[in-house]
């Protein structure tokens, strides 16, 4: 539990990639918490807690979690998330980032998982391990997504 509190950012970031509004975000976060709690007896401590948490949390997002009834979309999250107005960024960069985040949001669940792990600086062996695909395939797919993202901002 303390571990979970400490690493809760992992879950929040996954929620941001996979959900569109605050309600769903909370919902998914809660489900991740429950799944982590249930799976915790199986955590053997031979890997880092955070590594293990990535796996359980992503599994929850792409496999186990079932969305509750569609809540009315009150607020699309451009405003909350992906806020980005940061110093040192000129408008073009900001614009490009927004375009890329938009593109990411439109990816399918598996591609989202790939790009999420990439953004989290995970290496290919960890990515292939988490998703259960071969390293080569993870690399090929990732390159495709990267090219796609780049082409969006540099058509």
């Amino acid at each position, binding site marked *: 539990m303390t571990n979970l509190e400490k690493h809760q950012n992992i879950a929040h970031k996954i929620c941001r990639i996979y959900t569109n509004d605050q309600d769903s975000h909370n919902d998914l976060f809660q489900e991740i918490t429950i*799944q982590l709690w249930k799976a915790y007896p199986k955590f053997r401590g031979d890997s880092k807690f955070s590594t293990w948490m990535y796996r359980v949390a992503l599994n929850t997002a792409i*496999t186990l979690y079932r969305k509750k009834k569609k809540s009315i979309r009150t607020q699309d999250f451009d405003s909350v998330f992906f806020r980005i107005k940061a110093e040192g960024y000129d408008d073009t960069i900001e614009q*490009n980032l927004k375009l890329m985040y938009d593109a990411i949001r439109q990816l399918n669940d598996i*591609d989202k998982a790939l790009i999420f792990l990439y953004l*989290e600086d995970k290496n290919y062996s960890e990515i292939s391990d988490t*998703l259960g*695909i071969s390293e080569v395939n993870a690399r090929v*797919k990732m390159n495709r997504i*990267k090219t796609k*993202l780049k082409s969006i901002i540099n058509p």
Partner: protein
Amino acid sequence: MDDLDLLKKDWKKQEESLPHLTYDQIYKMLWKRSSSIVKWIFIISIGEFLFGVILNIIFADKDYWADMEKYHLKEFNIWVYVISYLITFFFIFRFYQNYRKISATDNASKLMKTILKTRKTVKLYIGYVLISSVVVFIVTIWMILKNHAETAVPQVEKNMAFDTTQWLIFFGIMLLSVAILLGILWLFYRLLYGILLKRLNKNFKELKKLEMH
């Protein structure tokens, strides 16, 4: 600097804007209801097993057994029951085994595979209920007709024989029950699992597609 590097940098920056829940807030969440797909599959599957058993119980009332006695089918029926319950228990056992194997700690591909396998067991069970019902139904009708022909000697004919209308009603009821059964099963599959497993199936296919390259 590369665009993707910028993206990565920005991604890391968002850490500051992420919500931070306290220990207590997280602890409270643990007692909320899980909306996990596995939980639903478990509940629905148990429902389906019960459905098969209840169907047996409803149809096998006293009158049913009396009828079976009349048509010398009691022994045949007892065997059918013993065998069908054995098979049902085997399915429940397999289902439970598969269910226990589902672990959020597995990699995504394996996790999806185990869930689908658990589902498949119940699917096979329903298929078995369907096919065996039809087989038992046909055998029973055949044996009733055979017995009927033997017992329908002229002096008892009036007591034992159905007239045409009765036959029609008899077959009508039989057909109707089979139709209702099929209807319920259709609902299970098209609606329930269609909705329940749509996302899982889609993601599983997506992963498989990656592996084929």
